[in-house]
């Protein structure tokens, strides 16, 4: 009983939110990109580059500039992916894979150039501190969970309805979705297919970059090799699970975040399962969640992954 109490305490839910944040941002990025018809498995690499450049930015100019630089770097990577998949019409998975490979190597090369005698891990840098929400934190249960969090966590929770509104209620969103479903038809109506895809994929990279920045200068205070540990891919899985909608993806991400927070607290509480196996719990859960979609309609945007040749 005591153990159960420890495992399901409110701190677990609070850390669920924190752990889910970068995954939510990646999933939002996935929604943007794939709704416009561009598959983006490069979210992982964009996130990693965002995490790295955020640390560099924070080291030299302070944490908030770091976040901005992380976001912009992610956007730059998104732009690269857009160039490859929209203009060059390369295989989108190949292009994104190249981004993922580069994102693992490039920081390792730059770390010793920026900080001599550092290898694979950056020095610790200024972080963005958690904040207290004055009224909400005094509400009994909810206050414990969301009253004391990082600003980026709040920003992410706001971004979910914002992106949802953008995609489903605005003219730009309608155009992005039209381009992802039937680019020929959209083109005949005078929508610039290439431009829409460029916008969507660049924004997707920015969201992933922000997720990376959260990871390196909010969740942790330094960059370490391959620190994203598959979160970009899990975000992608969450997006599919949430059927290409930001709100659905949010729920899937929270489920994943809970799995991770739960395994961490179970370890701390001394549950006799080897820690290495516990660490694989979120990945197993993601797999099961994807399988659980079976029988329900999980239909991706019709033109997803197909380059558009302007006729």
């Amino acid at each position: 009983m005591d153990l159960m109490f420890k495992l399901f305490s409110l701190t677990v839910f609070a850390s669920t939110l924190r752990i889910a944040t970068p995954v939510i941002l990646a999933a939002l990025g996935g929604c943007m990109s794939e709704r416009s018809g561009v598959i983006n498995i490069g979210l992982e690499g964009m996130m990693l580059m965002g995490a790295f450049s955020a640390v560099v930015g924070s080291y030299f100019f302070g944490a908030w500039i770091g976040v901005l630089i992380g976001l912009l770097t992610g956007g730059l990577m998104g732009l690269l992916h857009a160039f490859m998949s929209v203009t060059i019409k390369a295989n989108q998975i190949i292009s994104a894979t190249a981004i993922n490979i580069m994102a693992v190597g490039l920081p390792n090369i730059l770390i010793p150039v920026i900080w001599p005698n550092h290898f694979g891990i950056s020095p610790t840098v200024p972080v963005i501190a958690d904040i207290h929400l004055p009224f909400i934190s005094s509400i009994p249960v909810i206050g414990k969970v969301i009253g004391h969090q990082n600003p980026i966590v709040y920003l992410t929770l706001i971004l979910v309805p914002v992106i949802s509104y953008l995609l489903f209620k605005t003219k730009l969103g309608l155009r992005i979705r039209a381009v992802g479903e039937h680019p020929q038809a959209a083109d005949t109506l005078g929508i610039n297919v290439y431009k829409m895809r460029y916008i969507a994929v660049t924004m997707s990279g920015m969201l992933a970059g922000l997720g990376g920045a959260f990871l390196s200068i909010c969740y942790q205070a330094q960059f370490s090799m391959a620190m994203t540990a598959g979160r970009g891919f899990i975000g992608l899985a969450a997006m599919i699970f949430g059927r290409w909608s930001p709100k659905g993806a949010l729920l899937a991400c929270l489920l994943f975040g809970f799995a991770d927070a739960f395994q961490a607290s179970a370890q701390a509480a001394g549950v006799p399962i080897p820690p290495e196996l516990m660490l694989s719990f979120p990945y197993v859960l993601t797999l099961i969640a994807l399988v659980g979609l079976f029988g329900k309609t999980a239909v991706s945007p019709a033109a997803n992954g197909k380059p558009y040749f302007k006729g």
Partner: protein
Amino acid sequence: MNKNSLYNIFIENDSVFAFVKAFLAVLSAFILVYFILLVTGYRPLPVYSALFQGAFGSRRGFGETLLSTTPLLFSGLGFALAYRCGLFNIGLEGQITMGGIAAAFFGFIIPEINPFIHVLICISAGALAGGMWGFIPGYLKAKFGVHEVISVIMLNHIAFKFAAYLVSMQGPMKDKIDDMPASPVISESAKIVRIVSRTRLHWGIFLGIVIAVLVWFLLFRLRLGFKIRAVGKNPYAAEAAGISIKKHIIITLSLSGALGGLAGAVEILGVHYRLFAAFSPGYGFDAIAVALLGMVNPIGIIASSFLFGILRSGSVFMQAMYGVNKDMVSVITAIIVFFMGMSIPIGILIKDRIKRKNHGLDV
């Protein structure tokens, strides 16, 4: 012939065309990285020369080059096989890990027996374990429509954690004698014999070449390979012709995983002799570049895996000599992948244009 004869060779001979594309991709990567080196404050030419000196300059260095070529060859073939079926198996790293686990297990659990039989058992176990790790995403895709890219990434992480668990302090495969997070050393009879003195080179490289020829034969001479390629080229047409998409997805990913498993098994039995948590330094991810640069053709992959073997072994010397992080190689790899991704549509475009010109269709 007219002045177009060079063009004609270019477009009528696919392998010449492929070679030119691959060559340009590698050249562009080296040129781009030249500038990256310059910007980050290194002298590019000596760095490059150290790279090749490391790979070819000594007997030991050349042995190391062929040694890294071996797992890249196996896993490159694995990636190519799946790619031919329209599948993107970026889970080779996990499949390598599983193959290594199985090979190490049978390597130390069985005492000294006939070396041929012992190695055969271990290699088969590795292929089987890798094949199982490929079967799962295949089955999930065929049965539940789970995209293989996502499921294999999850399976990668599960495999890494599983290997880490096996050799951790309380792990069931942890060696009881020393403090290393590793399994016991495999029996003498399970070790793949070295073939050149004063190097670590073992005969795994020959097995790789044999397997490459077999994969080529499977893909281009056997009915199964034809069906695999048909599913990859146009799944709906294949289905209409009575080829089961689902069945071939499962078969292909299992075989692809088995090739990854082979890579892991050979790596454990020929190089490490025991299981470490992260014994593969990313061979499974390099496999993507290897396969694409080899134009997803088994014979091309023999050549491209050798190039990446050079990069891998040469980078160690490069780092020692000039302090350039050996991950510079992964940037070269990424750029090659970029250019191969680019050159395929551009190549089609150029070819198309030349053909139309030759036939007087273009104005």
